[in-house]
Each structure stands twice: as structure tokens, then as C-alpha cells.
């Protein structure tokens, strides 16, 4: 087990290095002048100013020096100390949101976590339940029906599904609005009486004892949660079904049946726990994906998470912000993948022995 974890940990710095190379490489597609423009908050006064900035940020230096500067920050000619640099959490200034990228992430990420927490539950539990149903009733009308359901699910682009549910539940029925909070609720949240605990709205509102705000926040999340769930159910259904079918053919299941156990106990007591192993990995990666910000879902519902911020930055060609998000995302994904792998190795001994 220890060797497995160590081996897995050793991969992390390599992946991190790789991601920084990748993102730095994309940045190199821009000319020095363009890259200088990325660092500016205001328009420069004249050409000389740009040249000065190119010198100051070292964009005329060899690539490896630039890479180092980018990571560690640029040397200030007066003090000789390095300033900024992504390793110090300075991802640059976001033009599209008029604030430093770091602040933007800090402000948006809790919203994404909030959505991920709520989407996770129905996505995984119902997805698995559907998969078990399909496997237990293999080739019956339930199985066929679920098969069609899952094909339709995978064929629906997130944004088409999102627009359709908005059309029905918001435009027609006026039940569930897009966005984050209603006007009155955000007034409360912005007021000085509001205490921020962990910045995740649904949890904070409960801690503040404001159930009305909790409900308002949840109401705004229901449609994105429904969309994310529906899009992902198909995958969970398929993986659970095939894993379950395979498990039901195993000898120990036959034994369990032979010794006269009720079918219920065979399926849910013996087969399902083992069949869920591959599903756990999938669930792990789905949660990781949700944390990475679901670009399209958040954009359709104008939900202020990091995904919609990334989309807005992309549309306004705000490359600093995009690359900041990419680094942040890469970091989350690497760490989260590591956790998923290690948890999985704990659950399934075959992984760490191979």
C-alpha cells in the first residue's frame, strides 16, 4: 500500500510540471507585445512604454528565463526581489472581471463547490439505482426503456437540455429562476448582519439561521442540478449495469443463491457492493469534474461559478484569466485524481497489488 501511494505521489510533481509547460506553451503562441498587453490594466501611453514593459517583464529573454519568471515572479529592478509569479498565487489581472484572477477564483469557487455538492447526490445515487434496476431486469422492458433513456441522455447537449428546462420551468411555469439568488436575498447576503462562515451559500445560510435564503439559493440551483444529473445518469447507468451483470455471473453469487438466500439479499447484499467498485472511480472523477467548474451548465443558467467565469473570459479573449483558471483547474484535478486513486486502492486491493 505504502509503495503504491509513494509511486502515485511521485507522479504528482511530473504532472504539475507538465501542466505548467502546457499552459506556458499556449502563452508562447502570443507575441511579446501581445503578452505585455495581458499584464496591463490600462492602455499604455506610447510605444516606448510598451518596450519598457517588455524589458521589465523579461519578454525579450530566452524561453526558460521567461518560464522561471512566470513561475516565480519578475525581479523588481529597484529592490531585487521577485514579485508576482503563479507560485505566489499571482495569476495576473482579469480584464473581463476587473479584478485579480486570484480574487475572482476566490469569489467564484465556493459557488461551484456549492453546486457540485448538490449535484453529486442525485447524480450518483439515482444513476446507480437505475443501473442496478437495468441489470436486475436484464432484457426486460425496464432494461430496454432505460437503454433508450440513456441514449437520449447522452445525445442531449448540456446547453440544449438546459435551454429546454429553462423554457419550461422558468419562462412558462415561472417556478425556477436562473442565476444565484433573488434580489431581496442578495441584499440580505450583502448586508453587514450577514456572517460569512465558509462562503458556501447553502451552508452559510443555515448557519445564519436564514432558511428563506437557504431555500432561495437551492431554488436557483435546482435546474442546473437537474441538468447535470440527467446528462451524467446515462454514464452511471451504463457502467453500473455492465459491472452488475458481470458480478451476477460470479460463482459466489451462484453460491449465495444456491444456499437459498432471498433474491433481494443476493442482489443488494452480495452482488451490489462488489459491482460498485468501478462505479466508485467514475463517481470520483465526476465529482472532480464538477469541482473543475462545469463551463456550459453554469453559462446556460448564468450561475456565477468558475465555469461561467472561464466562458466569459474566453468570449472576451481575456487570456490571462483563462490561463489562471487552467492552472487552478489543473491543480484541483491532479490533487483530486490522486485522492480518488488512493481511496480506490484502499477499497480494491487488486489495484495496489498489480
Amino acid at each position: 500500500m505504502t509503495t503504491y501511494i509513494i509511486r502515485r505521489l511521485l507522479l504528482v510533481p511530473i504532472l504539475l510540471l507538465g501542466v505548467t509547460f502546457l499552459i506556458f506553451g499556449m502563452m508562447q503562441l502570443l507575441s511579446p507585445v501581445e503578452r505585455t498587453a495581458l499584464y496591463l490594466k490600462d492602455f499604455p501611453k506610447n510605444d516606448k512604454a510598451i518596450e519598457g514593459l517588455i524589458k521589465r517583464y523579461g519578454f525579450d529573454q530566452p524561453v526558460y528565463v521567461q518560464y522561471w519568471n512566470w513561475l516565480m515572479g519578475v525581479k523588481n529592478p529597484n529592490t531585487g526581489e521577485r514579485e508576482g509569479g503563479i507560485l505566489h498565487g499571482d495569476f495576473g489581472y482579469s480584464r473581463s472581471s476587473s479584478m485579480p484572477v486570484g480574487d475572482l477564483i476566490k469569489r467564484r469557487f465556493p459557488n461551484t463547490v456549492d453546486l457540485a455538492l448538490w449535484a453529486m447526490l442525485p447524480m450518483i445515487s439515482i444513476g446507480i439505482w437505475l443501473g442496478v434496476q437495468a441489470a436486475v431486469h436484464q432484457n426486460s422492458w425496464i432494461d430496454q426503456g432505460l437503454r433508450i433513456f440513456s441514449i437520449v441522455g447522452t445525445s442531449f447537449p448540456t446547453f440544449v437540455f438546459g435551454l429546454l428546462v429553462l423554457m419550461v420551468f422558468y419562462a412558462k411555469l415561472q417556478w425556477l429562476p436562473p442565476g444565484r439568488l433573488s434580489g431581496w436575498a442578495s441584499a440580505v447576503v450583502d448586508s453587514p448582519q450577514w456572517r460569512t462562515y465558509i462562503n458556501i451559500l447553502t451552508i452559510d445560510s443555515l448557519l445564519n439561521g436564514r432558511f428563506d435564503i437557504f431555500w432561495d439559493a437551492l431554488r436557483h440551483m435546482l435546474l442546473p442540478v437537474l441538468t447535470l444529473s440527467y446528462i451524467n445518469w446515462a454514464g452511471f447507468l451504463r457502467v453500473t449495469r455492465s459491472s452488475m451483470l458481470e458480478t451476477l455471473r460470479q460463482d459466489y453469487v451462484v453460491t449465495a443463491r444456491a444456499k437459498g438466500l432471498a433474491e433481494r439479499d443476493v442482489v443488494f447484499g452480495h452482488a451490489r457492493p462488489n459491482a460498485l467498485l468501478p462505479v466508485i472511480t467514475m463517481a470520483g472523477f465526476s465529482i472532480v469534474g464538477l469541482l473543475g467548474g462545469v463551463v456550459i451548465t453554469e453559462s446556460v443558467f448564468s450561475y456565477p461559478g468558475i465555469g461561467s467565469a472561464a466562458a466569459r473570459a474566453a468570449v472576451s479573449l481575456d487570456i490571462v484569466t483563462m490561463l489562471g483558471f487552467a492552472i487552478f483547474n489543473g491543480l484541483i484535478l491532479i490533487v483530486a485524481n490522486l485522492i480518488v486513486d488512493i481511496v480506490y486502492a484502499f477499497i480494491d486491493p487488486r489495484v495496489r497489488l498489480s
Partner: protein
Amino acid sequence: MTIAEPTENIPSGDNRLLGDDVKMREIGRLERFLGPDNYRILKGLVKTPASRVGFLLVFIFAMVAIFAPLIIPPVPPNSPSKIPRDGYKNDPQPPGSPWKRQVPEIPFWYKTLTGKEEWVHLMGTSEGSYDIFYGVIWGTRTAFTTGLVVTIATFIIGVIYGSVSAYYGGIVDNIMMRILDVLMILPSTLAALIFAAVLTPKIGKSVMPVMLALIAFGWMGYARIIRGDILSIKERDYIMAAKVSGVKNSRILFKHIIPNAIFPTLVLASLGIGDVVLSFAALSFLGIGTETGYADWGQLLSFARNWISSLGTYWYIVVYPGMTLVLYVMGWNLIGDAMRDVLDPRMRGKS
């Protein structure tokens, strides 16, 4: 040509395989050409009703793409991929409203099928008076071109990368696979979004930046699959034979290994078109890619973003292009679903 189970070397006394029990089976031309494994895959593909519906859908879309100029002819000064604008009114107009400006010629089918003398907006107009019907029909062409170009490019890159990695093995393989891991860390939508945003100022707003971005971050899956297949083929006797007789590495790779390992990847790639079109539409929906008024489904849908609170009235700006996109992707997915069953290694050897 027919093959029979071997009749020689059967121990006397065991006559199960003799006489009438011997099964004779016709081997068709196609089967001989493709080999038994590949033939089985192909047969499995056309067998199920679901995949047949899939083929039908894709076929219909292909016909629409090919005969687009006959269905609704382009309006001359514009390039065909530009949706004609009936004026500059911002609000969407409902289906059936009269078409006044930039009217296409009347095609042969129009009067008989609609019973009208003049063009009307069959599916209404979207924001900015763009005709939805034109966008839906000509968007099919965009879907096929982007889908085909991206899929072919990613397939070629993936196959070359995966086979080089698998064939050389050892440290080369290790390094190449780690590079792959790095490229696969970022979710593909986000990676493509970033790359397209970096490219757009360089090459301008068109289908190109998005296509390049989808190519750059779309080939890794194919590389993995072909690598796996090659690793198993590499150990076969005929490869050893080629090596012993002194055939060059590159020749072994391209003449002997890849042709034998490529079929599953090829089939998967051909089904990746649906996914590519989905990602393309998604990026275009977010506002990255084609210029306003280009006939592509994602963009038609992005017009709807400004009318979300009144979608109850303007349902047609979502439903028509949305359903077209869903049916297109579903066509490919239905074929893909049949494919997965056929290619699933656990299903091999069972008919």
C-alpha cells in the same frame, strides 16, 4: 469459398465431427477481405434495430447536407454558409411569418409541400431576423465538415502517436504516455475553450480556431486505444518473423502492425463525429468560433441566450435547432452503442 471444420486427425471412435454434423459455412468476399474479427464487428453493427435507426438518421442528415442547395438555395451576394437576414429586426418572428428581404429562390418542392406561392419563415426567425430553417439545413453541412475534418485529423495524430509509443515501448512509451496524461488533465471543453481563445485573435473568427482546438485536445483517446491493440499484436509470430528477416522498424510498424490493429480505432473514430459536433456546437454556443450569422447549430442556439425569460413565446428559437442537434448526435450515438457491444472484449467469441 467454403470452410469446414477439420476432419483429419480425429481419433477413431469419436465421430461427432464426421458426416452430416460437419457445418459448412459460406465465406463471403467481404469477410475474406476484412478477416473474421473485423467482419464480425461490421456484422454486429448492422444487426440491431437501434443501430439501424442510427444509420438511417445519419443517412438522412448526409442527404440534407449534400442536397442543401436544392432544399433552400443560398441568396446570391452572400456565401452559402451565411444565413440570410430578413431585415434587422431584433425580436424573433414566429414560424410562418412572411419573408421580405434576402429571399431565396423558390425550390422545386416548396409549392407542393407547403401550398404557398412565396417563401415564408418555415421555422421562424431568430434574434436579428436570421432565418432558422436556412440555418438548420445549411448547419448540417457545417456539422459534417467540422465533424469529418476534426475526426480525421485527431485519428491520424492519435494513431501515429499511439503506435510509435507502443512499438518502441520502454522509456519512450513511458514518457509519451506521461505527456498524454498531462494533456488529459484539463477537461476537454475547458482546454479547447482556452486554446480557441488564444488562436482566435491570430486567425480571426471562423470555424478554424475551434476546429484546431478540438484537434489539439481530441486525439488522446485514439492514441490510448491503438496503443493497447498494438501492444497485443506486437507479440504475434508474424511480427517476430518480420523482425528476424531484417525488415526495417518503420516498415514493420506501418506495413504489418498498424493495418492489423487499426480497425477498432477506425470504427470508434468514425463514431466520434457526433461528439465532435457536440463540442463544436457547445463552444459556438458560448460565443467562441464562427462569426455571427454563420450557419451552425450552436450559434443559432446561442441567440436564444438573450431571450431566456421569454422562451415561452419564442420556443421555436430553441426547439428547432436544438432538436436537430439532438437527432444528429443521437444518430451517431445509436451506432456507437451497438459498436460498444460488439467491441466489448467480454463479448468476443460469443455471437
